């Protein structure tokens, strides 16, 4: 199967995104239909590509003599593509109802769909420079989405978002170029680009710079401030971008640079690995603590994303294959769980206008479906068995125990602490929602009821995936294992 088709997952959303903005649609409904079909088509193309798995890399152009612009579909790319391919149609459907009475919808939906193509680009890129290009383009495409409301608050959030992302991007570019000046071949290959000798402090510095660069998007401790601030954006944006696509591409890029460029054997045991492990472990606890303190619902979920992303980074920083598999499993499960949580928060916000946690006590009686989904995904995130969170958490703990060493122990303690904190900031809210204390019942208005079908379908789909993943995750885990090992 020739690899020309690799360009499709990037082009389809790009073209349809632009055409959404430009074509004069008769009605909102027809534009939504067009948008949904385009996104679904792209997901099927992705599915088809994953199944037929074209080999080799497609070089589009040569930036400089030694730096090609190339696309390739390998194990890691398949996992990330699969995640966004599955979640994007669901969230587009959700955003139709959310953005119902919004004034500039064409602009929103066009950038929303373009972003799909750019994230696919990040997944498909074959060498660090192409990935860097899509990575930076992703920042630019998401800027208008974060600044959608246009009020003073979202402007401040966008400013912070730009400062962090562009600063990080510049650093990661330096790191990549430092590496390329040393390494011969440029292609991503599991185990890292060859002939990098152990412990050369120039390369370790390069790795640290790339880690900081990509760490910004994956919200590691000192560089996380933009994520909660970006909570002001409309929920489909915060749900998809800041819980799934943008932050996951940060983590994806970090994994690419650790396992597929610098190579775990170069980094294992060095101060670079220790610093990443410490940063990740600290962020795990820090994110959960901040989430517990935060009363605004979406900011609380944003902080919980900060902490959960560092789960993945911690798995990655173990520099072992099991650690990577565990990290990736958490990437998938967290993506599904967190997007559901954001959708529930968004429905509550859009239907009842309540954004703060104390206001939702007793609301479960009026919006049963939303709050049952919220409770189930809360349980999943805390890691109760029979739900996906448990499996990735257990794998993380096992790989950390196997890796051994003081930093892995610190990570294990951080993981458990954060699990308790997650329980503390998600479950009470979920349970309180179903217990109507007398004085709350009179504060409900008639339109506090469950949303329309366009929101309920995503809820049910996501809850079902969670249950299936929770109960029968073994085939998926074995698939992860084989994909990573580079059988592709």
């Amino acid at each position, binding site marked *: 199967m020739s690899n020309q088709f690799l360009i499709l997952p990037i082009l389809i959303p790009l073209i349809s995104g632009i055409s959404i903005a430009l074509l004069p649609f008769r009605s909102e409904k027809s534009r939504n239909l067009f948008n949904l079909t385009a996104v679904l088509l792209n997901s099927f193309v992705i599915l088809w590509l994953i199944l037929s798995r074209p080999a080799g890399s497609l070089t589009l152009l040569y*930036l400089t003599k030694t730096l090609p612009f190339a696309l390739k579909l390998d194990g890691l790319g398949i996992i990330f593509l699969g995640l966004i391919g599955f979640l994007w149609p669901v969230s587009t459907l959700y955003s139709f109802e959310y953005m119902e009475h919004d004034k500039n919808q064409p602009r929103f939906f066009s950038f929303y769909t373009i972003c799909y193509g750019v994230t696919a680009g990040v997944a498909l890129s074959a060498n660090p420079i192409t990935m860097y*290009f899509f990575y930076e383009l992703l920042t*630019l495409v998401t800027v208008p989405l974060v600044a959608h409301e246009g009020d003073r608050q979202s402007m401040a959030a966008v400013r912070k978002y730009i400062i962090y992302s*562009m600063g990080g991007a*510049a650093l990661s*570019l330096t790191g990549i170029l430092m590496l390329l000046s040393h390494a011969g071949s440029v292609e991503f290959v599991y185990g890292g680009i060859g002939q990098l000798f152990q412990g050369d402090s120039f390369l370790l510095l390069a790795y640290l710079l790339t880690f900081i660069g990509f760490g910004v998007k994956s919200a590691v401790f000192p560089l996380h401030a933009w994520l909660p601030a970006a909570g002001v954006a409309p929920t489909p944006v915060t749900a998809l971008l800041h819980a799934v696509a943008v932050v996951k591409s940060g983590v994806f890029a970090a994994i690419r640079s650790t396992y597929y460029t610098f190579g775990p054997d170069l980094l294992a045991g060095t101060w670079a690995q220790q610093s990443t492990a410490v940063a990740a472990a600290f962020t795990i606890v820090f994110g959960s603590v901040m989430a517990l303190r935060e009363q605004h619902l979406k900011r609380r979920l944003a902080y919980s994303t900060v902490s959960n992303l560092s789960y993945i980074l911690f798995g990655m920083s173990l520099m072992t294959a099991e650690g990577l598999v565990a990290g990736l499993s958490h990437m998938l499960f967290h993506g599904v769980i967190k997007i559901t949580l954001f959708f529930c928060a968004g429905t509550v916000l859009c239907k009842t206008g309540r954004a703060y946690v104390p206001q939702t006590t007793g609301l479960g009686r009026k919006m049963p479906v939303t709050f049952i989904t919220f409770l189930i995904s809360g349980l999943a995130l805390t890691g109760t068995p029979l739900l996906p969170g448990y499996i990735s958490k257990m794998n993380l703990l096992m790989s950390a125990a196997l890796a051994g060493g003081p930093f892995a122990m610190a990570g294990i303690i951080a993981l458990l602490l954060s699990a308790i904190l997650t329980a503390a900031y998600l479950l009470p809210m979920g349970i309180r929602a179903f217990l109507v204390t007398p004085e709350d019942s009179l504060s409900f208005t008639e339109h506090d009821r469950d949303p329309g079908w366009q929101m309920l379908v995503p809820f049910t789909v996501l809850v079902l995936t969670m249950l299936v993943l929770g109960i029968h995750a073994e085939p998926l885990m074995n698939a992860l294992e084989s994909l990573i090992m580079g059988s592709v």
Partner: protein
Amino acid sequence: MATVQNFPFAAIMLYLAGGVTCCVLKPKASKVVCLLLNSLVTVLMFAVLLYTVRTGESYVYWMGHFPAPWGNEIRIGPLEALMGTAFPLIMTLTLLGGMEHIFEDVEPEKTNLYFTVVSLLMVAMLALIFTNDLFTAYVFVEINTIASCALVMLKYRSGRALVATTRYMMMSLLGSGLFLLGIVILYSITGHLLMEPMARKIRELFSTGNYAFPLTVTVGLFAVGMALKSALWPFSAWLPDAHSSATVSSSGILSGLVVKSYIILLLKIFYRVIGIDLVYSSGITNILFLFGFGAIVFGSFYALREKDIKRMLAYSSVAQIGYIYLGIGIGTSLGAKAACIQILVHAITKPLLFCTAGAFMSASGGSRRFENLRGAGRRDLLSGIAFTIGALSMIGIPLFAGFITKLHLTRSLFLFGTWKFWFGIAALVISTVLNTLYYLAAVSVLFQKVPGDSPPVERPSASLFYRCSVIIFSVLNLLYGIFSEPVTQIIQSGLSLFS
């Protein structure tokens, strides 16, 4: 002696003739003459470029039949030829881009003088690029100053342009004064004015070790002189006023080309006259590096706070010039290559931004402040898109020209452990972040949906000249971003043949 070899000299003579004829012709006719002249010179210089690249060495051209120590000569290598083609090409495109504004801003019956001044400016710049004699360099530096001041001044009934011109004149006279003093001291030491014999004498002196102090002083004088004229940060007080109060095309020419000609002269002096190793050992490059860093930080910072689009672009020029001096200051051939690439990239992008800024001003009632420019991008879609391409290239997004500079500059920074590495990284990060902030802010203001005017209120500047210049500029930007390899090769070989 292939006929191609005397094209550079012919180009200078053509421009002189063009300048003279323009001041007698009527404005319309002088416009046509000037444009034809420019395109002709571009073609000639392109032929020279092909010749030098094919032969792969730089040749000397005697003006008059006297051999080296007495006669005057010019020297053309691949790098000079490349700059020689680029300058007239960008001059033509900028003139096309700003043509309506020239006829609006300059007094009706004096517009032909504008084209005279432009031709004189081209004479001076080409001479600076090719000359092999220091005193001729001084003379053309002075002609360059007068011509560029005239360009700034030619804004009808604008007091601000006059004041800006005086400030600009004063500062650049300081620069040329120091430059002349440096030449005179060198002349009194070596006894020559031509670059090659002078370089041989200096190498002897350098090896014997005497005259060490005067030599470092002259290097300092040349560097500070040229820094003053090319508005490097501590001396850049005059640039924002001068570049923002001039007409659209002249501010494009000023920030795109004039400033660069001085830097090319400085590079030539460093490489050919004093010898690059002496320059690196004298430590002047570290100072230039620090000034470059300061330019990037302060230029971007001031641009961020600017409310007027042309002043913002002027301040961003200060920052981009800082990039060039950062490249020179790194002190390796890689650094110099990155500097030359930045010269070309900035020359392509900045005039585009100025022309589109001019179009926005005419599309929103001639005001330069951002709050009146709201939605201008929607009203004039072509310049909106062109401005965005220019902005993305300035930020340094891959596939655009700006990224190539960032790529080469970062590569040249890898002298691990030295303080330059850390300052360089810091400069890169700060400038990317600040550039993104103020360019994206500008783009978002331009594309804001203003409730009042849904249909394009003002007839967008639909003249053919403007449209094709903006399109060619944008395409040039994208092409350079993607196929930058051949140009980098030419620069590389040119630099090696420079000394």
